[in-house]
Protein backbone atom coordinates (compact mmCIF):
# COMPACT_ATOMS: atom_id res chain seq x y z
CA UNK A 1 0.00 0.00 0.00
CA UNK A 2 1.43 3.33 -0.98
CA UNK A 3 2.54 5.53 1.91
CA UNK A 4 0.30 8.38 0.88
CA UNK A 5 -2.76 6.16 0.99
CA UNK A 6 -1.65 4.74 4.32
CA UNK A 7 -1.21 8.16 5.81
CA UNK A 8 -4.59 9.30 4.54
CA UNK A 9 -6.29 6.24 6.00
CA UNK A 10 -4.50 6.89 9.25
CA UNK A 11 -5.74 10.44 9.45
CA UNK A 12 -9.17 9.38 8.27
CA UNK A 13 -9.48 6.93 11.12
CA UNK A 14 -8.39 9.57 13.59
CA UNK A 15 -10.79 12.07 12.05
CA UNK A 16 -13.73 9.70 12.34
CA UNK A 17 -12.91 8.97 15.96
CA UNK A 18 -12.52 12.66 16.69
CA UNK A 19 -15.82 13.53 15.12
CA UNK A 20 -17.67 10.85 17.04
CA UNK A 21 -16.00 11.89 20.27
CA UNK A 22 -16.70 15.55 19.73
CA UNK A 23 -20.38 15.22 18.87
CA UNK A 24 -21.67 15.80 22.40
CA UNK A 25 -19.65 18.94 23.08
CA UNK A 26 -20.54 20.17 19.62
CA UNK A 27 -24.21 19.59 20.37
CA UNK A 28 -23.89 21.33 23.71
CA UNK A 29 -22.25 24.28 22.05
CA UNK A 30 -24.60 24.91 19.16
CA UNK A 31 -27.87 24.19 20.87
CA UNK A 32 -27.15 26.78 23.53
CA UNK A 33 -27.35 29.35 20.79
CA UNK A 34 -30.71 28.26 19.45
CA UNK A 35 -34.07 29.63 20.42
CA UNK A 36 -36.15 27.31 22.49
CA UNK A 37 -38.48 26.59 19.63
CA UNK A 38 -35.58 25.65 17.40
CA UNK A 39 -34.11 23.33 19.99
CA UNK A 40 -37.34 21.40 20.26
CA UNK A 41 -38.03 21.22 16.57
CA UNK A 42 -34.77 21.02 14.71
CA UNK A 43 -32.26 18.17 14.86
CA UNK A 44 -29.68 18.39 17.60
CA UNK A 45 -26.81 18.11 15.18
CA UNK A 46 -27.85 20.95 12.93
CA UNK A 47 -26.42 24.39 13.63
CA UNK A 48 -28.84 27.21 14.50
CA UNK A 49 -30.32 29.14 11.60
CA UNK A 50 -30.06 32.23 13.69
CA UNK A 51 -27.77 32.61 16.68
CA UNK A 52 -29.59 33.93 19.71
CA UNK A 53 -28.27 34.52 23.17
CA UNK A 54 -31.62 34.19 24.91
CA UNK A 55 -30.68 30.90 26.54
CA UNK A 56 -27.43 32.21 27.91
CA UNK A 57 -29.08 35.38 29.08
CA UNK A 58 -31.73 33.58 31.03
CA UNK A 59 -29.31 31.07 32.46
CA UNK A 60 -26.43 33.37 33.34
CA UNK A 61 -28.32 35.14 36.06
CA UNK A 62 -29.65 32.06 37.73
CA UNK A 63 -26.38 30.16 37.42
CA UNK A 64 -24.39 32.98 38.93
CA UNK A 65 -24.91 31.88 42.51
CA UNK A 66 -24.22 28.22 41.79
CA UNK A 67 -21.03 29.19 39.95
CA UNK A 68 -19.89 31.18 42.93
CA UNK A 69 -20.84 28.31 45.23
CA UNK A 70 -18.75 25.98 43.13
CA UNK A 71 -15.76 28.28 43.30
CA UNK A 72 -16.05 28.66 47.05
CA UNK A 73 -16.19 24.92 47.45
CA UNK A 74 -13.70 23.76 44.86
CA UNK A 75 -10.78 26.09 45.40
CA UNK A 76 -10.15 25.45 49.10
CA UNK A 77 -10.91 21.74 48.76
CA UNK A 78 -8.46 21.18 45.96
CA UNK A 79 -5.59 23.18 47.40
CA UNK A 80 -6.00 21.70 50.85
CA UNK A 81 -6.31 18.17 49.50
CA UNK A 82 -3.31 18.47 47.23
CA UNK A 83 -1.11 20.05 49.88
CA UNK A 84 -2.05 17.95 52.89
CA UNK A 85 -2.05 14.91 50.65
CA UNK A 86 1.48 15.78 49.53
CA UNK A 87 2.55 15.85 53.16
CA UNK A 88 1.03 12.43 53.68
CA UNK A 89 2.79 11.19 50.55
CA UNK A 90 6.14 12.33 51.91
CA UNK A 91 5.36 10.54 55.14
CA UNK A 92 5.02 7.31 53.17
CA UNK A 93 8.31 8.07 51.53
CA UNK A 94 10.00 8.36 54.92
CA UNK A 95 8.41 5.13 56.08
CA UNK A 96 10.05 3.30 53.25
CA UNK A 97 13.41 4.17 54.84
CA UNK A 98 12.64 3.05 58.28
CA UNK A 99 14.01 -0.22 59.54
CA UNK A 100 11.29 -1.38 61.85
CA UNK A 101 8.66 -3.94 61.03
CA UNK A 102 5.98 -1.78 62.58
CA UNK A 103 6.48 0.87 59.93
CA UNK A 104 5.84 -1.52 57.07
CA UNK A 105 2.63 -2.58 58.68
CA UNK A 106 1.51 1.01 59.25
CA UNK A 107 2.52 1.88 55.73
CA UNK A 108 0.46 -0.96 54.26
CA UNK A 109 -2.62 -0.12 56.29
CA UNK A 110 -2.52 3.58 55.55
CA UNK A 111 -1.76 3.00 51.90
CA UNK A 112 -4.71 0.65 51.57
CA UNK A 113 -6.93 3.23 53.20
CA UNK A 114 -5.97 6.00 50.86
CA UNK A 115 -6.41 3.75 47.85
CA UNK A 116 -9.80 2.76 49.14
CA UNK A 117 -10.78 6.39 49.58
CA UNK A 118 -9.73 7.17 46.04
CA UNK A 119 -11.51 4.35 44.28
CA UNK A 120 -14.47 3.56 46.45
CA UNK A 121 -17.87 4.71 45.25
CA UNK A 122 -18.53 7.78 47.35
CA UNK A 123 -22.19 6.96 47.11
CA UNK A 124 -21.71 3.88 49.22
CA UNK A 125 -21.11 6.00 52.30
CA UNK A 126 -24.34 7.90 51.76
CA UNK A 127 -26.13 7.09 54.96
CA UNK A 128 -23.39 7.45 57.56
CA UNK A 129 -22.09 10.52 55.76
CA UNK A 130 -25.43 12.29 55.97
CA UNK A 131 -25.84 11.36 59.59
CA UNK A 132 -22.36 12.60 60.39
CA UNK A 133 -22.96 15.88 58.60
CA UNK A 134 -26.27 16.37 60.33
CA UNK A 135 -24.82 15.68 63.74
CA UNK A 136 -22.02 18.17 63.10
CA UNK A 137 -24.52 20.74 61.89
CA UNK A 138 -22.88 20.80 58.48
CA UNK A 139 -25.88 20.31 56.27
CA UNK A 140 -26.34 23.08 53.75
CA UNK A 141 -23.07 24.79 54.68
CA UNK A 142 -19.93 25.45 52.67
CA UNK A 143 -17.84 24.01 55.45
CA UNK A 144 -19.93 20.88 55.42
CA UNK A 145 -19.56 20.24 51.73
CA UNK A 146 -15.86 21.00 51.84
CA UNK A 147 -15.36 18.72 54.82
CA UNK A 148 -17.26 15.89 53.15
CA UNK A 149 -15.21 16.27 49.99
CA UNK A 150 -11.97 16.34 51.97
CA UNK A 151 -12.79 12.92 53.40
CA UNK A 152 -12.32 11.51 49.93
CA UNK A 153 -9.93 13.93 48.31
CA UNK A 154 -7.17 14.32 50.89
CA UNK A 155 -6.46 10.61 50.57
CA UNK A 156 -6.72 10.94 46.78
CA UNK A 157 -4.18 13.73 46.92
CA UNK A 158 -1.94 11.54 49.05
CA UNK A 159 -2.19 8.66 46.59
CA UNK A 160 -1.44 10.76 43.53
CA UNK A 161 1.41 12.63 45.19
CA UNK A 162 2.89 9.33 46.37
CA UNK A 163 3.37 8.52 42.74
CA UNK A 164 4.73 11.91 41.74
CA UNK A 165 7.08 12.17 44.67
CA UNK A 166 9.18 9.31 43.36
CA UNK A 167 10.93 11.62 40.92
CA UNK A 168 12.90 13.17 43.74
CA UNK A 169 16.29 11.44 44.08
CA UNK A 170 16.67 9.70 47.39
CA UNK A 171 20.15 11.07 47.86
CA UNK A 172 18.76 14.60 48.26
CA UNK A 173 16.66 13.54 51.18
CA UNK A 174 19.51 11.56 52.66
CA UNK A 175 21.76 14.59 52.35
CA UNK A 176 19.18 16.67 54.18
CA UNK A 177 19.02 14.06 56.93
CA UNK A 178 22.78 14.12 57.23
CA UNK A 179 22.44 17.87 57.59
CA UNK A 180 20.30 17.31 60.63
CA UNK A 181 17.01 18.40 59.07
CA UNK A 182 13.68 17.31 60.52
CA UNK A 183 11.14 15.79 58.16
CA UNK A 184 8.72 18.68 58.26
CA UNK A 185 11.47 21.04 57.16
CA UNK A 186 12.65 18.62 54.51
CA UNK A 187 9.12 18.62 53.15
CA UNK A 188 8.69 22.39 53.12
CA UNK A 189 12.11 23.34 51.78
CA UNK A 190 13.04 20.52 49.49
CA UNK A 191 10.39 17.92 48.75
CA UNK A 192 7.47 20.25 48.14
CA UNK A 193 9.29 22.73 45.90
CA UNK A 194 10.83 19.92 43.88
CA UNK A 195 7.55 18.09 43.39
CA UNK A 196 5.76 21.14 42.04
CA UNK A 197 4.91 19.67 38.62
CA UNK A 198 3.35 16.67 40.34
CA UNK A 199 1.55 18.97 42.74
CA UNK A 200 0.05 20.94 39.89
CA UNK A 201 -1.04 17.75 38.17
CA UNK A 202 -2.71 16.53 41.34
CA UNK A 203 -4.32 19.91 41.84
CA UNK A 204 -5.75 19.89 38.33
CA UNK A 205 -7.11 16.41 38.77
CA UNK A 206 -8.81 17.24 42.06
CA UNK A 207 -10.18 20.55 40.80
CA UNK A 208 -11.90 18.84 37.90
CA UNK A 209 -13.19 16.00 40.06
CA UNK A 210 -14.59 18.24 42.79
CA UNK A 211 -16.07 20.74 40.36
CA UNK A 212 -17.99 17.96 38.68
CA UNK A 213 -18.77 16.10 41.86
CA UNK A 214 -22.46 15.46 41.78
CA UNK A 215 -23.23 13.14 44.60
CA UNK A 216 -21.91 14.86 47.70
CA UNK A 217 -23.77 18.11 47.06
CA UNK A 218 -26.83 16.12 46.01
CA UNK A 219 -26.96 14.58 49.42
CA UNK A 220 -25.82 17.47 51.57
CA UNK A 221 -27.56 20.44 50.03
CA UNK A 222 -31.25 21.07 50.41
CA UNK A 223 -31.54 24.82 50.00
CA UNK A 224 -31.46 25.93 46.38
CA UNK A 225 -29.19 28.86 47.22
CA UNK A 226 -26.36 26.58 48.21
CA UNK A 227 -26.31 24.38 45.15
CA UNK A 228 -23.10 24.27 43.16
CA UNK A 229 -23.22 24.09 39.38
CA UNK A 230 -22.88 20.32 39.25
CA UNK A 231 -26.41 19.89 40.57
CA UNK A 232 -27.84 23.22 39.50
CA UNK A 233 -27.69 22.15 35.86
CA UNK A 234 -30.29 19.50 36.52
CA UNK A 235 -32.87 22.13 37.31
CA UNK A 236 -32.77 23.15 33.68
CA UNK A 237 -34.33 19.99 32.48
CA UNK A 238 -38.04 19.63 32.64
CA UNK A 239 -39.96 16.77 34.15
CA UNK A 240 -38.48 13.47 33.08
CA UNK A 241 -35.86 14.67 30.73
CA UNK A 242 -37.48 17.32 28.58
CA UNK A 243 -34.74 19.61 27.55
CA UNK A 244 -34.65 23.19 26.51
CA UNK A 245 -32.06 25.46 25.04
CA UNK A 246 -31.46 26.53 28.64
CA UNK A 247 -30.18 23.05 29.39
CA UNK A 248 -27.44 23.31 26.82
CA UNK A 249 -26.46 26.81 27.84
CA UNK A 250 -26.39 25.80 31.48
CA UNK A 251 -24.38 22.70 30.68
CA UNK A 252 -21.88 24.77 28.75
CA UNK A 253 -21.50 27.33 31.50
CA UNK A 254 -21.10 24.63 34.10
CA UNK A 255 -18.41 22.94 32.04
CA UNK A 256 -16.46 25.92 30.84
CA UNK A 257 -14.14 26.10 33.80
CA UNK A 258 -13.12 22.45 34.01
CA UNK A 259 -12.89 22.24 30.22
CA UNK A 260 -10.71 25.32 30.07
CA UNK A 261 -8.45 23.94 32.78
CA UNK A 262 -8.30 20.67 30.91
CA UNK A 263 -7.51 22.25 27.58
CA UNK A 264 -4.84 24.62 28.84
CA UNK A 265 -3.34 22.79 31.79
CA UNK A 266 -4.43 19.24 31.11
CA UNK A 267 -1.27 18.51 29.27
CA UNK A 268 0.69 18.81 32.53
CA UNK A 269 -1.49 16.22 34.13
CA UNK A 270 -1.22 13.93 31.13
CA UNK A 271 2.52 14.43 31.00
CA UNK A 272 2.75 13.70 34.67
CA UNK A 273 0.79 10.48 34.28
CA UNK A 274 2.74 9.43 31.25
CA UNK A 275 6.05 10.05 32.95
CA UNK A 276 4.91 7.62 35.60
CA UNK A 277 3.33 5.13 33.25
CA UNK A 278 6.79 5.32 31.81
CA UNK A 279 8.28 7.52 29.13
CA UNK A 280 6.92 11.02 29.27
CA UNK A 281 8.33 12.01 25.92
CA UNK A 282 6.34 13.18 23.02
CA UNK A 283 3.12 14.54 24.42
Amino acid at each position, binding site marked *: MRPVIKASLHYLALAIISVIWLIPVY*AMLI*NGFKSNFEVLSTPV*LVPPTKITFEAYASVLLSLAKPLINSLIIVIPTSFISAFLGAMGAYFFYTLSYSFSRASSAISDVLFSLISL*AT*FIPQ*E*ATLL*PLTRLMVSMGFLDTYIGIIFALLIFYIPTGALLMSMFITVIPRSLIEAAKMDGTG*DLKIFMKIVFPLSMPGFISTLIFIIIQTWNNFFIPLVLVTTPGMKPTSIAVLSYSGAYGTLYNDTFAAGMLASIIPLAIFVFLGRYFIRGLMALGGGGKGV
Partner: protein
Amino acid sequence: MKKGTIILVVPTAVFSAILLYLVIWNAVISFMNWSLLNSKPTFVGLETYATVVRTFQFTNSLLHSIELSVSLVIIGNILGILIAALLYFLNSNKARSIFLSIVIYPLAISMAVNGLIWLWLFNIHIGVDWLLVRIGLPQIPWLSSTSTMFPSLILVTVWAYTGIAALFYLAGFMNIDKTIVEAARLDGTSAFKILYKILIPNSLNSFIIATALLFLFSFRIFDLPYVLSGGTTNIFLQTSELYMYYLFTVEYFSQATAVATIITLVATIIIIPYALTVIRRWIRR
Protein backbone atom coordinates in the same frame (compact mmCIF):
# COMPACT_ATOMS: atom_id res chain seq x y z
CA MET B 1 9.28 8.74 65.60
CA LYS B 2 9.83 12.44 65.77
CA LYS B 3 7.01 14.94 66.16
CA GLY B 4 7.88 16.73 62.95
CA THR B 5 7.48 13.51 61.02
CA ILE B 6 4.15 12.56 62.50
CA ILE B 7 2.58 15.92 61.76
CA LEU B 8 3.01 15.14 58.08
CA VAL B 9 0.57 12.31 58.15
CA VAL B 10 -2.00 13.60 60.62
CA PRO B 11 -4.46 15.14 58.15
CA THR B 12 -4.30 12.18 55.79
CA ALA B 13 -4.63 9.70 58.62
CA VAL B 14 -7.49 11.57 60.24
CA PHE B 15 -9.57 11.81 57.10
CA SER B 16 -8.80 8.24 56.13
CA ALA B 17 -9.93 7.21 59.58
CA ILE B 18 -13.17 9.10 59.16
CA LEU B 19 -13.75 7.26 55.94
CA LEU B 20 -13.07 3.95 57.59
CA TYR B 21 -15.50 4.93 60.31
CA LEU B 22 -18.18 5.65 57.71
CA VAL B 23 -17.61 2.32 56.03
CA ILE B 24 -17.84 0.47 59.31
CA TRP B 25 -20.93 2.39 60.38
CA ASN B 26 -22.49 1.40 57.08
CA ALA B 27 -21.86 -2.21 57.90
CA VAL B 28 -23.26 -1.81 61.41
CA ILE B 29 -26.53 -0.33 60.16
CA SER B 30 -26.84 -3.11 57.64
CA PHE B 31 -27.03 -5.60 60.44
CA MET B 32 -30.13 -3.87 61.73
CA ASN B 33 -33.63 -3.53 60.40
CA TRP B 34 -33.97 0.21 60.11
CA SER B 35 -36.58 1.37 57.67
CA LEU B 36 -39.65 3.53 57.25
CA LEU B 37 -41.62 0.85 58.97
CA ASN B 38 -39.13 0.39 61.75
CA SER B 39 -37.97 3.67 63.18
CA LYS B 40 -36.48 2.05 66.24
CA PRO B 41 -34.05 -0.33 64.66
CA THR B 42 -32.80 -3.47 66.37
CA PHE B 43 -30.01 -5.86 65.61
CA VAL B 44 -31.08 -8.60 63.25
CA GLY B 45 -27.84 -10.14 62.05
CA LEU B 46 -27.88 -11.14 58.40
CA GLU B 47 -31.64 -10.98 58.03
CA THR B 48 -31.62 -7.70 56.14
CA TYR B 49 -29.07 -9.11 53.75
CA ALA B 50 -31.22 -12.16 53.23
CA THR B 51 -34.23 -10.01 52.41
CA VAL B 52 -32.43 -7.70 50.06
CA VAL B 53 -30.52 -10.37 48.21
CA ARG B 54 -33.74 -12.15 47.34
CA THR B 55 -35.36 -9.19 45.64
CA PHE B 56 -35.53 -9.02 41.89
CA GLN B 57 -34.09 -5.55 41.92
CA PHE B 58 -30.98 -6.65 43.74
CA THR B 59 -29.99 -9.34 41.31
CA ASN B 60 -31.12 -7.24 38.38
CA SER B 61 -29.09 -4.24 39.41
CA LEU B 62 -26.07 -6.34 40.33
CA LEU B 63 -26.16 -8.02 36.96
CA HIS B 64 -26.35 -4.62 35.32
CA SER B 65 -23.35 -3.38 37.28
CA ILE B 66 -21.34 -6.43 36.33
CA GLU B 67 -22.47 -6.26 32.73
CA LEU B 68 -21.52 -2.61 32.55
CA SER B 69 -18.10 -3.20 34.05
CA VAL B 70 -17.30 -6.21 31.94
CA SER B 71 -18.42 -4.42 28.78
CA LEU B 72 -16.40 -1.35 29.59
CA VAL B 73 -13.32 -3.39 30.42
CA ILE B 74 -13.48 -5.38 27.20
CA ILE B 75 -14.49 -2.60 24.84
CA GLY B 76 -12.39 -0.03 26.63
CA ASN B 77 -9.25 -2.14 26.38
CA ILE B 78 -9.73 -2.98 22.71
CA LEU B 79 -10.66 0.54 21.66
CA GLY B 80 -8.00 1.93 23.96
CA ILE B 81 -5.31 -0.16 22.26
CA LEU B 82 -6.52 0.82 18.80
CA ILE B 83 -6.67 4.50 19.60
CA ALA B 84 -3.31 4.37 21.35
CA ALA B 85 -1.86 2.69 18.27
CA LEU B 86 -3.29 5.35 15.99
CA LEU B 87 -1.77 8.00 18.22
CA TYR B 88 1.54 6.20 18.56
CA PHE B 89 2.20 6.10 14.85
CA LEU B 90 1.64 9.80 14.41
CA ASN B 91 4.72 11.79 13.59
CA SER B 92 3.77 15.03 15.20
CA ASN B 93 3.79 15.44 18.96
CA LYS B 94 1.32 18.26 18.65
CA ALA B 95 -1.17 16.18 16.69
CA ARG B 96 -0.79 13.39 19.21
CA SER B 97 -1.49 15.79 22.03
CA ILE B 98 -4.56 17.19 20.33
CA PHE B 99 -6.13 13.86 19.47
CA LEU B 100 -5.41 12.48 22.91
CA SER B 101 -7.17 15.46 24.46
CA ILE B 102 -10.14 14.80 22.22
CA VAL B 103 -10.67 11.32 23.58
CA ILE B 104 -10.07 12.29 27.19
CA TYR B 105 -12.05 15.54 27.44
CA PRO B 106 -15.34 13.81 28.40
CA LEU B 107 -13.83 13.34 31.84
CA ALA B 108 -13.47 17.06 32.28
CA ILE B 109 -17.21 17.50 31.97
CA SER B 110 -19.53 16.54 34.77
CA MET B 111 -21.17 13.18 34.18
CA ALA B 112 -24.54 14.73 34.95
CA VAL B 113 -24.09 17.22 32.11
CA ASN B 114 -22.87 14.45 29.85
CA GLY B 115 -26.00 12.53 30.73
CA LEU B 116 -28.22 15.46 29.81
CA ILE B 117 -26.56 15.93 26.45
CA TRP B 118 -26.78 12.28 25.58
CA LEU B 119 -30.42 12.21 26.64
CA TRP B 120 -31.01 14.68 23.88
CA LEU B 121 -28.72 12.88 21.42
CA PHE B 122 -30.69 9.73 22.06
CA ASN B 123 -33.95 11.41 21.03
CA ILE B 124 -35.36 9.29 18.24
CA HIS B 125 -36.65 12.22 16.23
CA ILE B 126 -34.08 14.93 16.42
CA GLY B 127 -31.10 13.25 18.00
CA VAL B 128 -28.43 11.17 16.34
CA ASP B 129 -31.11 9.07 14.68
CA TRP B 130 -31.90 12.01 12.41
CA LEU B 131 -28.40 11.71 10.98
CA LEU B 132 -28.49 7.93 10.81
CA VAL B 133 -31.73 7.98 8.88
CA ARG B 134 -30.35 10.55 6.51
CA ILE B 135 -27.38 8.33 5.72
CA GLY B 136 -29.72 5.44 5.18
CA LEU B 137 -29.03 3.56 8.40
CA PRO B 138 -31.86 2.20 10.51
CA GLN B 139 -33.30 4.26 13.33
CA ILE B 140 -32.10 2.96 16.70
CA PRO B 141 -34.61 3.27 19.56
CA TRP B 142 -31.88 4.05 22.14
CA LEU B 143 -33.62 4.88 25.42
CA SER B 144 -37.14 4.36 24.15
CA SER B 145 -36.91 0.63 23.97
CA THR B 146 -36.17 -1.65 26.89
CA SER B 147 -33.85 -3.78 24.84
CA THR B 148 -31.59 -0.95 23.75
CA MET B 149 -31.66 1.06 26.96
CA PHE B 150 -28.79 -0.61 28.70
CA PRO B 151 -26.59 -0.80 25.62
CA SER B 152 -27.11 2.95 25.29
CA LEU B 153 -25.72 3.37 28.77
CA ILE B 154 -22.77 1.22 27.83
CA LEU B 155 -22.20 3.37 24.79
CA VAL B 156 -21.99 6.58 26.80
CA THR B 157 -19.74 4.95 29.38
CA VAL B 158 -17.39 3.77 26.67
CA TRP B 159 -17.35 7.24 25.15
CA ALA B 160 -16.49 8.74 28.51
CA TYR B 161 -13.85 6.35 29.80
CA THR B 162 -12.04 4.82 26.84
CA GLY B 163 -9.73 7.82 26.79
CA ILE B 164 -8.14 6.69 30.05
CA ALA B 165 -7.32 3.29 28.64
CA ALA B 166 -5.92 4.94 25.52
CA LEU B 167 -3.77 7.19 27.70
CA PHE B 168 -2.20 4.36 29.64
CA TYR B 169 -1.63 2.22 26.59
CA LEU B 170 -0.03 5.14 24.81
CA ALA B 171 2.22 5.74 27.80
CA GLY B 172 3.16 2.08 27.75
CA PHE B 173 3.90 2.10 24.03
CA MET B 174 6.07 5.16 24.31
CA ASN B 175 8.01 3.49 27.03
CA ILE B 176 9.09 0.68 24.74
CA ASP B 177 12.61 1.06 23.41
CA LYS B 178 12.24 3.05 20.22
CA THR B 179 15.13 1.34 18.50
CA ILE B 180 13.25 -1.96 18.42
CA VAL B 181 10.35 -0.37 16.60
CA GLU B 182 12.65 1.47 14.26
CA ALA B 183 14.47 -1.73 13.41
CA ALA B 184 11.16 -3.38 12.61
CA ARG B 185 10.18 -0.44 10.46
CA LEU B 186 13.42 -0.69 8.54
CA ASP B 187 12.66 -4.34 7.91
CA GLY B 188 9.45 -3.24 6.26
CA THR B 189 7.14 -4.50 8.99
CA SER B 190 3.61 -3.15 8.68
CA ALA B 191 2.12 -1.05 11.43
CA PHE B 192 -0.36 -3.78 12.31
CA LYS B 193 2.37 -6.30 12.77
CA ILE B 194 4.37 -3.94 14.91
CA LEU B 195 1.31 -3.37 17.04
CA TYR B 196 0.64 -7.01 17.55
CA LYS B 197 4.13 -8.40 17.81
CA ILE B 198 5.93 -5.64 19.66
CA LEU B 199 3.62 -3.10 21.22
CA ILE B 200 0.89 -5.26 22.68
CA PRO B 201 3.10 -7.99 24.13
CA ASN B 202 5.00 -5.32 26.05
CA SER B 203 1.90 -3.69 27.45
CA LEU B 204 1.16 -5.87 30.40
CA ASN B 205 1.48 -2.99 32.84
CA SER B 206 -0.86 -0.81 30.83
CA PHE B 207 -3.33 -3.64 30.61
CA ILE B 208 -3.37 -4.07 34.35
CA ILE B 209 -3.79 -0.37 35.07
CA ALA B 210 -6.37 0.20 32.35
CA THR B 211 -8.44 -2.79 33.38
CA ALA B 212 -8.42 -1.93 37.05
CA LEU B 213 -9.34 1.69 36.43
CA LEU B 214 -12.02 0.88 33.88
CA PHE B 215 -13.53 -1.62 36.25
CA LEU B 216 -13.49 0.73 39.20
CA PHE B 217 -14.90 3.68 37.33
CA SER B 218 -17.72 1.73 35.80
CA PHE B 219 -18.57 -0.04 39.00
CA ARG B 220 -19.08 3.15 40.93
CA ILE B 221 -20.82 5.14 38.22
CA PHE B 222 -23.85 6.98 39.54
CA ASP B 223 -24.46 10.34 37.90
CA LEU B 224 -24.75 8.97 34.41
CA PRO B 225 -27.36 6.26 34.88
CA TYR B 226 -29.19 8.54 37.30
CA VAL B 227 -29.60 11.25 34.72
CA LEU B 228 -30.30 8.89 31.84
CA SER B 229 -33.00 7.20 33.89
CA GLY B 230 -34.43 10.46 35.09
CA GLY B 231 -34.35 9.05 38.60
CA THR B 232 -33.84 5.76 40.30
CA THR B 233 -36.78 3.73 39.25
CA ASN B 234 -35.91 2.61 35.76
CA ILE B 235 -35.30 -1.07 36.16
CA PHE B 236 -33.57 -1.40 32.86
CA LEU B 237 -30.88 1.06 33.69
CA GLN B 238 -30.60 0.36 37.35
CA THR B 239 -27.14 -0.46 38.58
CA SER B 240 -26.34 -1.52 42.13
CA GLU B 241 -25.50 2.06 43.04
CA LEU B 242 -28.85 3.31 41.82
CA TYR B 243 -30.63 0.53 43.60
CA MET B 244 -28.91 1.53 46.80
CA TYR B 245 -29.94 5.15 46.34
CA TYR B 246 -33.48 4.07 45.58
CA LEU B 247 -33.67 2.15 48.83
CA PHE B 248 -32.44 5.25 50.60
CA THR B 249 -35.08 7.44 49.01
CA VAL B 250 -37.83 5.06 50.04
CA GLU B 251 -36.30 5.00 53.49
CA TYR B 252 -35.39 1.36 53.71
CA PHE B 253 -32.17 2.43 55.35
CA SER B 254 -30.80 -0.86 56.53
CA GLN B 255 -31.38 -2.41 53.15
CA ALA B 256 -29.67 0.53 51.51
CA THR B 257 -26.62 0.10 53.69
CA ALA B 258 -26.63 -3.62 53.05
CA VAL B 259 -26.34 -2.99 49.32
CA ALA B 260 -23.78 -0.28 49.99
CA THR B 261 -21.68 -2.65 52.07
CA ILE B 262 -21.79 -5.28 49.37
CA ILE B 263 -20.68 -2.71 46.81
CA THR B 264 -17.88 -1.57 49.12
CA LEU B 265 -16.75 -5.14 49.65
CA VAL B 266 -16.53 -5.82 45.94
CA ALA B 267 -14.61 -2.61 45.40
CA THR B 268 -12.27 -3.37 48.31
CA ILE B 269 -11.47 -6.84 47.09
CA ILE B 270 -10.29 -5.37 43.82
CA ILE B 271 -8.63 -2.23 45.15
CA ILE B 272 -6.56 -3.44 48.05
CA PRO B 273 -4.53 -6.16 46.37
CA TYR B 274 -4.15 -3.91 43.34
CA ALA B 275 -2.94 -1.01 45.46
CA LEU B 276 -0.55 -3.04 47.53
CA THR B 277 1.05 -4.76 44.61
CA VAL B 278 0.87 -2.75 41.41
CA ILE B 279 0.92 0.76 42.77
CA ARG B 280 3.46 -0.07 45.41
CA ARG B 281 5.77 -1.66 42.87
CA TRP B 282 5.43 1.39 40.72
CA ILE B 283 6.44 3.60 43.58
CA ARG B 284 9.22 1.43 44.90
CA ARG B 285 10.77 1.08 41.44
